[in-house]
């Protein structure tokens, strides 16, 4: 796709503003609009600015780049826009960013993000050979042809110390379920979802092709992803590039393992849990029930909903590369801090996440709000694993 492909659509936005809200209008649910409040930072504002750029009414600029790159691609606008072109909104924003990439006018942090991924395969310039180090501690095997699942971990799960525990928890559950699986370890490469969402289409294709070739070479049929971002891109974008694999998110697989009895989950301690829907699992791929069903299968878990949940969930603020570029982070009005305040209102002991990006953002939000001593952020696998090990320890 190119921006020109949307020339018959882009002018149709009225800036009526339904896209800013939740479905019942309780809150502004577009993270950058909620933070900056200028009309330019709303989905409609972006649509009009991208059109203005197409018409050469405005020039690409750093400020325009900040406006477009502050979009977390949470797809609330897609959910709430009342017009038939609603599906096109995030694609148009993605193409707007692609135009900025072409004109060399991206935020410096986005430029660094692309460069690091191109040179090192991850955003932090971490050594590729250390990508699988975390797994040794948990005894998680390397994938070999014939294994049922490739466990795709992703950049954050591979390098972020907190998220490595999340990756480890899921790996241990797979081991306990007796599934044949493995990771790619030092051969794993960035999935490219954020690169695509940030408009670097050439780099995305390079990453996707590289992954597809590797998966084919290793005779991969089924992929289970830790990250909803990887899930999204591998499920929805890789097929067009020849990568037709059966892709599931780990919460879907957990649900199946538990309901089939392959994974026994005894009762754990009594805890109140609220679940934060990741945008790339929920709004992008309509997976709302499976994570909740997994949580509810743990005896002792009381699941309580935040005011904004499911289709109306408020984004943690990390999508569209913002976990790295940090354009909308900082201050009380940062999305992650708003979200943890909302979680605190439920009285929950734990904010359950199902996404590495959400985990890093929510952890930051808890620290920012000084709530990290009161509420824990746990991934769903960690909650399930804790219930199992607690029962075993008596």
């Amino acid at each position: 796709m190119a921006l020109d492909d949307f020339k018959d659509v882009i002018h149709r936005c009225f800036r009526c503003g339904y896209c800013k809200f939740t479905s019942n209008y309780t809150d502004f649910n577009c993270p950058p609009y909620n933070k900056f409040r200028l009309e330019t930072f709303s989905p409609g504002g972006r649509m009009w600015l991208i059109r203005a750029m197409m018409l050469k009414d405005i020039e690409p600029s750093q400020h325009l780049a900040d406006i477009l790159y502050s979009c977390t691609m949470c797809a609330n606008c897609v959910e709430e826009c009342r017009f038939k072109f609603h599906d096109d909104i995030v694609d148009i924003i993605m193409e707007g960013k692609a135009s900025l990439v072409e004109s060399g006018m991206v935020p410096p942090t986005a430029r660094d993000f692309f460069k690091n991924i191109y040179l090192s395969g991850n955003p932090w310039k971490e050594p590729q050979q250390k990508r699988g180090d975390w797994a040794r501690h948990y005894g998680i095997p390397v994938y070999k042809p014939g294994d049922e699942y490739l466990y795709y971990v992703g950049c954050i799960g591979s390098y972020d110390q907190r998220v490595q525990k999340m990756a480890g928890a899921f790996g241990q559950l797979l081991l306990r379920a007796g599934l044949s699986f493995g990771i790619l370890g030092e051969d794993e490469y960035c999935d490219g979802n954020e690169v695509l969402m940030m408009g670097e289409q050439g780099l995305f294709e390079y990453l996707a092709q590289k992954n597809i070739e590797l998966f084919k070479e290793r005779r991969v049929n089924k992929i289970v992803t830790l990250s909803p971002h990887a899930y999204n891109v591998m499920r929805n974008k890789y097929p067009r590039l020849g990568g037709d694999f059966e892709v599931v998110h780990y919460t879907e697989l957990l649900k199946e393992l538990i309901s089939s009895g392959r994974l026994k989950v005894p009762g754990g301690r009594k805890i109140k849990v609220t679940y934060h829907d990741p945008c790339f699992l929920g709004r992008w791929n309509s997976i709302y029930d499976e994570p909740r069903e997994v949580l509810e299968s743990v005896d002792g878990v009381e699941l309580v909903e935040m005011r904004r949940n499911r289709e109306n969930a408020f984004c943690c603020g990390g999508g569209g590369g913002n976990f790295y570029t940090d354009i909308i982070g900082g201050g009380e009005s940062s999305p992650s801090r708003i979200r943890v305040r909302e979680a605190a209102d439920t009285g929950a002991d734990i904010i359950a996440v199902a996404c590495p990006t959400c985990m890093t953002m929510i952890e930051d939000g808890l620290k920012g709000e000084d709530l990290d001593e009161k509420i824990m952020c746990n991934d769903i696998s960690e909650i399930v694993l804790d219930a199992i090990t607690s029962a075993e320890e008596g």
Partner: protein
Amino acid sequence: MPVKDGNSLYAGLTDILGQEFVSKEPEELYIYSRDSSANPPRPVDYVVMPSSVEEVQAIVKLASSKGIPLIPMGAALNLEGLTLPLKGGIVVDMRRMDKIIEVSEMDRYALVEAGVSQGKLISYLEEKYPMLQHSVPDAPPSATVAGSCLICGYGHLSTNYGTHAEMVNGLEVVLPTGEILRTGSAMLSTSLWFGRGSLPDLTGLFLGWLGTTGIVTKLSIRLYPRPPIRDMVIYMMQDSSIVPDVVYRITHTEVAEDVSIVGQERPEWMKGYQIIAAYVSAHTEKELDLKKSYLKRISKEEFKSKVSFMEEAPGELKEQFMELPFFATKVADWKKGGGFEYVGAIMPIDTLPEAWEKGIDIAHRFDMLYSYAIRVVEGGHHVLFTYSYPFNRADEVSMHNALSALKETQKLSLALGAIPWKPEVDGQKEIIKKMDKGTFKLMQRIRKLLDPGGIMNPGNWEVD
């Protein structure tokens, strides 16, 4: 006209608001210089977003000291270019002032800051005060409550209570000199917001003046009981000349909560019909049935074959008509072009047949389909007749046609003795031409008194 002394003005604004909420970037200037109407863009010099009355005061004093125009803005959804600066200046986007300060359940009012959106108040009342409702305009939920009151807006399922301007209990306003004024019962105490009382009614100095007399920072509006049961009946006819009589009979029963009239060429089955929707609310099903039976009798006994009556509206139509806020933007998308204009003409109801027929001529002359939505106000004292002109922003001919149709319709309205609602700048001039000269002079004197520097939304309500 570029603002003189720009650097010191920018520094002054950022001193007040911080850099985050002051912009002179081309992107903000581009967006705030345009709205969804067919009006041409109007250059903006700065955009600011205050969060308190003190910040508004400081901005006003600064602008006043430098003679810079100020253009207060809600959500800019008036579709008439009323928040596009006619003489440059600072657009004051009020939407950071979005607190619902107080709801008095007993006295049925809400005190809100000027940037509170319709959506926020709808959801707040639904959650906290489910027995109460406010009058919701046919605008998206992002429209502001204050904006609709200040342009004398109209609400869906609530026009029996009058216009939004009439629902205002009182205002807090920063005058163009920087002083704060409170009107209505709040004149006596900052904690009294229950009504306008019998004091000199200064509220009117800010209603319908299109931001030329001050910046409203908070307002109290009336709330109404939310009926537990709501339904609608439909009358259909193919003769616009009988519409006033049918409406008269419906309103005379005093059982309809609201009455509106629709006419449009698409979908095809609606072409040529006048469709009157009478909404009925009740506390019990028995009460509802009784009210509907009164309304049924009108068509059956008084208009017989001339009027078809539907006791049950078709599901989709009913859903569409009962939705709050009413999704008027659907009509706006007819041209699939992201542009929408309409003329609202406030008129006596017996003018309706002529307005109907002549409106069709105008629409067809400018390559449009006619589309009317008419609200019967205050139980039939007058109607608001709206002529819709959706257009394609990517097509200059379509934009030109919409604007031409708009101007023709404004002229028609004035010729019919109607008052164009929230008129754009050319419409204002047409009204002034027709206005009593002494009255217009008094308006000018009032403005001069309130705004000696002429900084408030200049160009509006003025002759060249």
